[in-house]
């Protein structure tokens, strides 16, 4: 279970970081979302992985750590609010600049050859 869990966290984080480095706002938001999933799972794992145990002392001989669960809950709520804000902000960016590039509108003039290539491919 530990290996699977670690692989999942790794995959989520790696895809998150990759998408975060993209130049359009939509992949960036997706990247941040995946990253926050990975982080939340990581945070959850910091209380050790255990199945079928209650986070209450005294009910069974062994118990799972309740604190990371509370931390993850807080982190999820905060992450959700922040992502919502970021979505609105990037829509605003799209509306303002008619472009969803993260650096806003560029004075973009494609090289001649590339324009021709695109024209010919159409």
């Amino acid at each position, binding site marked *: 279970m530990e290996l699977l869990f670690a692989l999942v966290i790794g995959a989520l984080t790696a895809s998150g970081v990759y998408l975060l480095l993209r130049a359009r706002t939509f992949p960036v938001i997706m990247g941040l979302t995946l990253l926050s999933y990975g982080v939340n799972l990581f945070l959850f794992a910091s209380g050790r992985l255990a199945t079928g145990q209650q986070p209450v002392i005294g009910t069974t001989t062994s118990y799972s750590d309740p604190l990371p669960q509370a931390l993850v809950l807080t982190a999820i709520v905060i992450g959700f609010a922040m992502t919502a804000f970021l979505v609105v902000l990037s829509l605003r*960016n799209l509306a303002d600049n008619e472009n969803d590039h993260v650096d806003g509108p560029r004075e973009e003039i494609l090289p001649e050859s590339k324009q021709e290539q695109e024209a010919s491919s159409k």
Partner: protein
Amino acid sequence: MTHWLIAPILIPLLGGILQVFMGYAPISLRRTLAIATTVLMLVSAVVLLALASDGSYRAYAFGNWQPPFGIVLVLDRLAALMLVLTAVLGLFCHIYASGGADEGNRQFHTLFLFQLMGLNIAFLTGDLFNLFVAFEVLLIASYGLLMHGGGTTRTVPGLHYVTLNLAGSALFLISVGMIYSVTGTLNMADLAVKIPQVSGNNLNLVKAGGMMLLVVFGLKAAILPLCFWLPKAYARATAPVAALFAVMTKVGIYAIVRIYPLIFGEGAGELANLGMDWLFPLALVTLSMGVIGALGADNLKTLVAWQVIISVGTLLAPIALGSEAGLSAALFYLVSTTWTVAALFLVSELVASQRGTAADSIVTAPQMRHRTFLSVLFLIGAVAAAGLPPLGGFFGKLLILKAVEPGTQMAWLWGVLLAGGFFTLIAYSRAGSIVFWWNVDGHLETPEPLNNRVAISTGILTCLTLLIVILAGPLSDYTRATAEQLYDNRGYINILQTPVHVPQNPLVGEVN
């Protein structure tokens, strides 16, 4: 257990909630209430300063939980100093904002007060995860404030700012998780007890967590590789917001000062002085980068935004020395530089409002209105920022120069700081002489006259640097005592022994 500790959090919280429901009330009423809230917050901060100046620690346990298990607020000299610093800054920015900058968005005062609340939580909290929450509270308010006033120019820097801080939050959570997985606690006092006992493989885990935490705080404080978001975002924000943001980078520095001497201090065994050898060169490079940016700035606000980065470098270099004298000097400089930079943001906005289309660009333009008043304020701000005698910045830099022991570090620090100061002076002289002296003939469409609130708040905030000069003795005594308190972490650990409040009449009949 005194209940005063919660006051700087509750006052802006309640004031802010009140503002939420008053979105459609007359603006004069909203302004009066909002400023009254900030004044009350300043009063509570001063009370806490008076409480803290006896050198003891006061803890406030939420929900009456015994410290390592519940969240605590901790008041010591450093927290009180930061609270007063922020409250004074917040008050003048708020008065400035009520001179007209708060129009156009009904929730401006709400966001402003929540921002102050987030800052106060960050300064008072004694729990690492609660520090994360405080960061998020102040950040989400700052996202809103940064966008305030609209304009397409603010969207892109805002997007960068939000994305970077979200990535920073992710890193913060990872490092908190790493530290928690080894120590099983996030209470700072308890961490200071547990970290020295860590050994074996766990050591690397805590070390990685600690270093990542430094990256997060470095992002908030805008240390060099992580500082490029700052100038654009700050230069385009509305003046009172940019001025309030002058304290936001200081939150990162506060977190470094709070956590590293306490948890990774001398007594931390193998983890002692974690990361401090990285911080010193980075601080000097940050300082140099800020100076280069200031020299290349093409408008006043960008110039001041780079000044924020210069002051971050200047502050972190003595902190990284790891000596009491260094920390004391840094805290002294912190007070002076925060107010000065904030005042310069306000002055730049006033200059921009009086120059028509030239705004705050460093170009020749027709003579502005109120030239004498504005140029004197700019002169005071620039002299204090560049660190020339006789103003506050000079004493701060002098203390920093005196704090370093002779050796390689001294050569680097003196060289970079003095050369940096010289080039900063050039940047300000260039900007000031072009903007204020080199006027061309021409017609300037009549700008709006300065209103009293704006002029008075900017004037007083600028002149606070004179107050620092007058009170330099008591202030440096206070910062020295603060530094001593910070490097002796036994006092902080003692809050674990704080007895919880036992109710007079315990409930009869326990629930089973």
